[in-house]
């Protein structure tokens, strides 16, 4: 095995309150690192949705890890095999760590296609069935820096039977063993890290078994599957994560799949999660919305006091944002639905609003454009709307993770939570 290994350096572990640290030794040469709690850079086939490298590079402090999914890549296996130099080079990604996951977290897959030996992914050309052999052949052509092992995650639907949940744990462990066997024998994957996938649906016993068994294997970290938004409510999710992380070694990272809402992120960090996928800003962008929730907990009175809520506008906001989804609501089946962390720029009220999306935001969109322009781009279906919203939403979301780490470092997580959960009312400030 190559010299560089992923290692997690924890700076703080707050009992029932999150872990703060740095994931080091990332990438083939080990020169990259990623702060935790943190998130990966969400992409479609190596491209942050809507963005070219020019527009992406307007963003500072992007995560050093880019996520790609086999659902995008599988159909291009032959091309990558011929290309030979791996996906990062194929996609023109120069200086990033590549993480390869199975599914696209923003595009839930249909169920009913998983067998004992196979899982399916959906690309632009339809379903592609993967055996462990094909899965591993793909990894050899993708040449990621780390990847999740093959998994049966079909437990997220309501009323999934205990028997089905148990089966998913068994299958996923079997897939992992097979993946590791191929992995260890393949020269192409030398120095590449594998994350084991934890299943178990909403059954505590199965969750614990999955965690214990996976932890016995030589994996670099863990993917928590089947707990995504829409599959389970936050209270139960918190309980399960809190319990299962006790079974996991302290020094390995835990990546939670399919959860991205700020309130849920906060709760899951407290329960012991380190990493998230950043598909949430993409979903917000696709519905023509902008993230505006406040995460500013700086003591600077000038900054802290910059958003006094106006009662009148606040009421209007409630009208269109729909019912506020409180922490723990299970009204989450439809991930396309607007959350209370965002404003819809399609709303008529923004047609003559010449303010930036978020006052004081340093992103390219906020520094150069106004809400009225975004509103116009959306009502005229212009492609630039997606570009500008994606820039802002990405900047805002990664800014939130920065604030989250600051809060953990300075014992202000409670303050941040209050700010994020209640501060939503300050949008119009």
């Amino acid at each position: 095995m190559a010299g560089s290994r992923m290692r997690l350096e924890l700076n703080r572990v707050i009992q029932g309150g999150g872990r703060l640290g740095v994931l080091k030794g990332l990438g083939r040469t080990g020169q990259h690192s990623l702060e935790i709690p943190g998130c990966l850079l969400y992409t479609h086939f190596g491209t942050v949705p809507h963005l070219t490298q020019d527009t992406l590079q307007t963003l500072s402090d992007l995560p050093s890890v880019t996520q790609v999914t086999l659902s995008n890549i599988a159909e291009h296996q032959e091309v990558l095999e011929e290309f030979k130099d791996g996906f990062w080079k194929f996609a023109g990604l120069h200086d990033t760590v590549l993480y390869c996951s199975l599914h696209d977290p923003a595009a839930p897959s249909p169920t009913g296609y998983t067998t004992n030996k196979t899982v399916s992914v959906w690309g632009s050309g339809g379903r592609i069935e993967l055996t462990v052999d094909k899965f591993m052949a793909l990894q050899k052509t993708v040449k990621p820096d780390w990847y999740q092992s093959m998994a049966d995650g079909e437990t997220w639907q309501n009323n999934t039977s205990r028997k089905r949940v148990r089966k998913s744990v068994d299958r996923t462990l079997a897939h992992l063993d097979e993946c590791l066997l191929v992995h260890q024998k393949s020269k192409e994957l030398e120095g590449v890290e594998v994350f084991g996938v934890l299943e178990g649906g909403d059954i505590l016993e199965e969750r614990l078994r999955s965690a214990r068994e996976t932890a016995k294997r030589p994996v670099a970290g863990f993917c928590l599957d089947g707990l995504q938004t829409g599959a389970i409510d936050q209270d139960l999710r918190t309980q399960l994560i809190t319990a299962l992380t006790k079974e996991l070694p302290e020094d390995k990272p835990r990546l939670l799949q399919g959860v991205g809402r700020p309130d849920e992120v906060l709760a899951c960090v407290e329960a012991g999660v380190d990493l998230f996928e950043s598909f949430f800003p993409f979903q917000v962008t696709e519905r023509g919305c902008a993230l505006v929730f406040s995460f500013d907990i700086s003591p600077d009175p000038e900054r802290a006091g910059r958003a006094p809520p106006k009662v009148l506008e606040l009421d209007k906001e409630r009208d269109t944002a729909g019912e506020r989804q409180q922490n723990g609501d299970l009204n989450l089946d439809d991930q396309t639905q607007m959350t209370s962390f965002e404003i819809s720029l399609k709303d008529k009220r923004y047609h003559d609003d010449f303010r930036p999306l978020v006052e004081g935001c340093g992103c390219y969109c906020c520094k150069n454009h106004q809400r009225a322009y975004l509103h116009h781009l959306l009502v005229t279906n212009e492609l630039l709307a997606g570009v500008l919203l994606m820039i802002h939403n990405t900047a805002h979301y990664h800014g939130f993770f920065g604030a989250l780490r600051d809060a953990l470092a300075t014992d202000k997580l409670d303050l941040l939570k209050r700010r994020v959960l209640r501060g939503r009312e300050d949008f119009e400030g």
Partner: protein
Amino acid sequence: MAAAIECGADSENNMSLKKAVCEASPLALRIIAECPVTKARACDLTLPHCVVSTPVFMPVGTQGTLKGITVDQLEGLGCQICLGNTYHLGMRPGPDLIEEAKGLHGFMNWKRNLLTDSGGFQMVSLVELSEVTEEGVKFKSPYDGKEILLSPEKSISIQNSLGSDIMMQLDDVVSSTVTGPRVEEAMHRSIRWLDRCIAANKNPDKQNLFAIIQGGLNAELRKTCLDEMTQRDVPGFAIGGLSGGEEKDDFWRMVTLSTDHLPRDKPRYLMGVGYAVDLVVCVALGCDMFDCVFPTRTARFGSALVPWGSLQVKHKQYAKDFQPIDPDCQCPTCKRHSRAYLHALFKSDTAAMHHVTIHNIAYQLTLMRSVRQSIVEGRFPEFIRTFMKRLFSSREQYPSWAVDALASVNITLE
């Protein structure tokens, strides 16, 4: 105001001419070089927001945005002037809002020059129920069904709100394939509307109003229109009513007739022309400015413009082609991405369109810069020959109209 400053900075030998133009309009045209063989010229066109190097291709940003490209990207490609459409912007978001946003420049945050059309062309081409009377163009709004009249005064009023550096007069547009008395009527009406537009312009010190030469494919009518319109004190002229499906043989003859009679010291804008071969030929015929939606529209369908024609990125043959679109192209797309990656990305994300759009704008602007450079260096005829050789696989493939048009300006293609 900006133009006055630019004028002051101009070299002294052209001072008297410039002064005269400056006093009349916020525009100055300085001829840098003229091709000794063809009618081509290279000029510095000073407009309120910056100097434009001509010949120039102007990308079209219909609704206050250039399809998926940020203004910084557009600036980065070296674009000095782009278009906005009065019809679209007048409908949404409307002139009042744009005025409040400090004009179209402020609304879209574009720091360089803007040209707006009159809105007349879209009305005739997009709106089914439109009717042209002496008053203006009457049509039903596709958004709320209300009947609206676009008069010359209304068009200029909207364009004044947009605050474009160059405004176009409202003209009576007739399809270039129509013949008969309607063409003559439209030509005369366009002259009358030009006078109404000139009178309606509230910002003659800040916004240039261009006349549009009409007359269909009839040389006599074109000539009449040219005689009349060149008597008006306008800062520039457009050649209109072409590029609408007419025979190319008719097209180039109307173009060359127009440039023969247009004043040397004012810019000539050939509307709706954007294919590479048309651009090069019409520069040789004496045109300075061009616009067309083609390069950006075709990009979104995966068609990349290259010196040898076009390349359909979405075609299967490029799935395993690891070269850039054009190995010699210096655009951000070609510097980073391969045909194969773009081919695959078209299946996953809209950014694929943006990549090709960037490339195609870069292609158009680079082509025009090369044309200009060759004019300045006195080797435009040679440039044309090389260009044609690269674009077409053999002499037999040269379009006959282009051969004829070039022959009319003393360029023989071997």
